[in-house]
């Protein structure tokens, strides 16, 4: 089993302040990732689909 050497740190007391930040980092990261995905969809729509569509 591959574990991080920091696994021992796991305790609820350390966890609580982190949870209170409301997963800010995850919102930013997942938000950026989702935005890129949706951006790619629109890029395809605008630069591939629309130019080829029937006038």
């Amino acid at each position, binding site marked *: *089993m*591959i574990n*991080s050497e920091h696994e021992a740190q*796991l305790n609820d007391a350390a966890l609580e302040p982190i*949870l209170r930040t409301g997963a800010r*980092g995850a919102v930013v*990261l997942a938000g950026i990732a*989702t935005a890129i995905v949706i951006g*790619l969809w629109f890029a395809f729509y605008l630069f591939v689909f629309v130019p080829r569509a029937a006038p």
Partner: protein
Amino acid sequence: MLHNKKLILAHFWLAFGGFGFALLLGEWQMYIRSPLHAWLGNPELYYRSVTAHGTTMAYVLPTLVAMGFGYAITEAALKRPLIGRKWAWAGLGLVLAGTIVAIIPVSLGLASVLYTFYPPMVGNPFYYIGVVMVVVGSWIWVALTVINLHAWKRDNPGAPVPLAMYANTAGALLWAWTAVGAAIELLFQIIPAALGLTTTIDAGLARVFFSWTLHAIVYFWLFPAYIAYYTIVPRAIGGRLFSDPMARISFSLFLVVAMPIGVHHLFADPQVGAGFKFLHSAFTALVSLPTLLTVFTICASVEIAGRLRGGKGALGWLKVLPWDNPLMLAVAFSFVMLGFGGAGGLINMSYQLDSSIHNTQWVTGHFHLIFGGAIVIMYFAIAYDLWPHLTGRALTSFRLMRAQLWTWFVGMIVLTFPWHYVGILGMPRRMAFYDYTDPAMAGEAASVMMSVLGGAILVVSEILFFTVLIRGHRAPRVEAGEYRFSVATHEPHSVPAALNGFGLWVSLMLGLTIINYGFPIAHLMALRDTSVPVVRVGGAK
């Protein structure tokens, strides 16, 4: 504590053995149809190879990984030995026998119909019979999974089913139902024709049955990867699973909406009504919901690990993550490939946008990125994590593992990005060679050669992978301890009945199947004049 180590190890080795062989075929195919090689003297060899590559990669590898990993989860999560050990060996035997039965006619060139079958072309019956045996073998695993969960629930009334087992069972149930489509196509349409009992076949109906399997099978492939995201990664990197109920909701959603959406593979087909195409398109959009939820939950779980290690700021926690840990690396690579592959997938499923790239090389690029990339890299990660528990020996070389994961990631990107690009240019799929000397195709030559290079990097990665595993079998013995899963930030003491069983979700899955597939199938079956002559393949005399 894993009780049936040999059983699990046998599944993984057979899966990876087939994978290793099929990967070489894949790279040979990339090379042979590229500008680097002269046109193949016998194009049938190419289609034969594609059939073997696809059959092994799509049916044998993921099925065996899901089965082996599934047995490991059943024992480790329920903390008791597997019930039905002999049946499990029988299931594995059936999968192995089926693979051999199928691969013989394929390698003799008697069934070069590709793994998607394509009736009215019909090859040697043993190919299809072999595939059916693989599926039936996997159904034994499904039954054992359900039986083991049921027995555990009986002994632990009211207790929450461990998340890993909940997800594992959801995957098994999804597979049980989604395999039915192709099974009907094989048993009632193709095999009778292959045996000479019938001379005609309704190709349109066959495509509808196959679509029933074709999309949800991707989620079946995906389940082990998602289980690893939720139940292995947070533990391995020193974090916590952000939310246990959200994980259950995601897996339940997959169970409901992964299957009744397959007609999006038939957007361009003439035998399905436009209304049903839209219906399936709408539900396909819905299946991206559990993935969006997963992306957030896993990012949040990883964030916890980063913050516990002292990470600060909106993204500063990323820097302090344990990047030397192979599982950290694997999940990061997997997410990047999932993102790009997912973007391609959203384009494919969008009712109209599909027409720009339907059935071009784009599609091949897409599913290699999602399956070969995002999913298979997690299969590697699962193997690395599980191996010491199976062999009782330590995997020590993190450097080698990281090199393997890096090469797989880079190789897959170099392989699939140009592949998507030539698809946009309109390069059709599954041709044994192309004329790159023509000005209209000259622009594709460089991209195709890039893909060959990407494939070569993947072969290097494969060698590294086997090196890690084989060295693992020779390493000094260690006591690996209990095989554990992630702990949630808030471990559930009780969960709602809906999220502790599958009654509701399976009912919805069956109901949606009737709504979305009932009429098209019944209507096509009622048509009398749409069966067409069977065209035999491999029957040259």
